[in-house]
């Protein structure tokens, strides 16, 4: 599992930070930072929810 963020569409809504703070943060420019691009499998459900929750569809998972 590899987490990919599209910085060109991210608007810093931080739903991912609320859902999976181990994996995502939003920086002082108001844009997502992927803290852990290859999170451990026990975080998979949270990461999946974070991806689906993103209002701008800026997150994806590559296998």
């Amino acid at each position, binding site marked *: 599992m590899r987490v990919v963020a599209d910085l060109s569409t991210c*608007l810093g*809504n*931080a739903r991912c930070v609320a859902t999976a703070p181990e994996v995502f943060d939003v920086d002082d420019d108001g844009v997502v930072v992927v803290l852990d691009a290859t999170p451990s499998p026990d975080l998979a459900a949270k990461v999946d929810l974070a991806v689906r929750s993103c209002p701008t569809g800026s997150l994806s998972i590559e296998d």
Partner: protein
Amino acid sequence: MAQSVVLASARMGIVDFDFVPLRGTADPYPIYDRMRETGRVLRSPFGALMVHRYDDVRTTHGDHDAFSMAAAATGDGGMRASMGGGRRAEGSAVEGMQGGGMQGDDFFLAQTMLTTDPPDHERLRRVVNRAFTPRSIAAIESRVRELARELLAPLANGEPFDVVADFAGPLPTIVIAQLLGVPEEDADQFRIWSEVVAGTDVRGRGTPEASRRYGMELRQYLADQIARRKGEPTDDLIGRMVEANSEEIMSDAEVVAACVLLLVAGNETTMRLISNMTLALSRFPEQRELLVDDPELITPGVEETLRYDSPVQMLFRASKEDTTVGDVEIPKGQFVLTMLGAANRDPDAFAHADQYDVTREENMHIAFGHGIHYCLGAPLARRETRIAFEELLQVAPEFEVLTPDDALDYPPTGMLRSPRTLVVQAV
């Protein structure tokens, strides 16, 4: 057989529906049920189309090229024709979108991110985004808590307490003033301006005339605050916006308009969210007990309130091109009302959709919208409301509502929803 034929054809096209969305009702939910039974895309008697399914609202918000915010705000793209040439219809869309308080013409003197499409939208949102980060909002946690405690003192003392006027309204109004960096000595004046301008003046102090004057005074004040910060940077919302705008991506008028938007879009909606949650917890005491026993559930409880009784029941878009919603063709130039309140009760999207359940998992409600216009203030609203109930349920783990159901007085526009008054008392 005959019935299934009717249903099939109803699904194919736009179906007339006898509901005027801007004429409010105390209980819109049975109307939303009727919408689901009637068809996928409906036309209201005042001309606007309505989409109500969760997936359709989400898709519509996600496709900002076809379903434009700018066109809805300005009436571009042949909308006047489709609305019967109505300035009036256009005005009501604008009025509804901003939740009352300010007149459309003033509001649109300078553009904001709310009413623009890309590329203007990015330009106007980026600067505010840099100032309004999750970190900057997290920093005010203890101040919000302190303020909530102060406001809740009469409830703690066992007095009858109007949650709307004495708690839900003042809390976001005072918090945003502090976030913006309004100096202490101006706080009272600023609060009066923003109550009247931003729709939290529930006691009705502001006449329409005062509202216009306060709007002008508020803008002038914000312009002065912006000018002051250009020489000396400050670590507050206005200061950080000025800093983020050092390359003058936005005009000063646009920065002022962005500040006013934070008040207009944030204060009244948060007030309504806190009010609706108080009401829901009074109606479902077993849910309230769950939150008292396990305050960790307040966070999902806030989400459930957003879903179950959304402060913003509908948002406008306008079709900028010929497009479709599912199998229904939507011509260019139509006002499209996206019914958030209905989508959040869509049984195809939520199990036991009509039930208030603070333990609901994966609550992907659409109360804050979706796509590029997703509510910028959502992290602040969520935090304020969580803290509000952490504190309220501490001082009044059990409370009763003294306001009779028929005196809750829902707003005349069905756009925004919550009681105008809600007097409670600790038991």
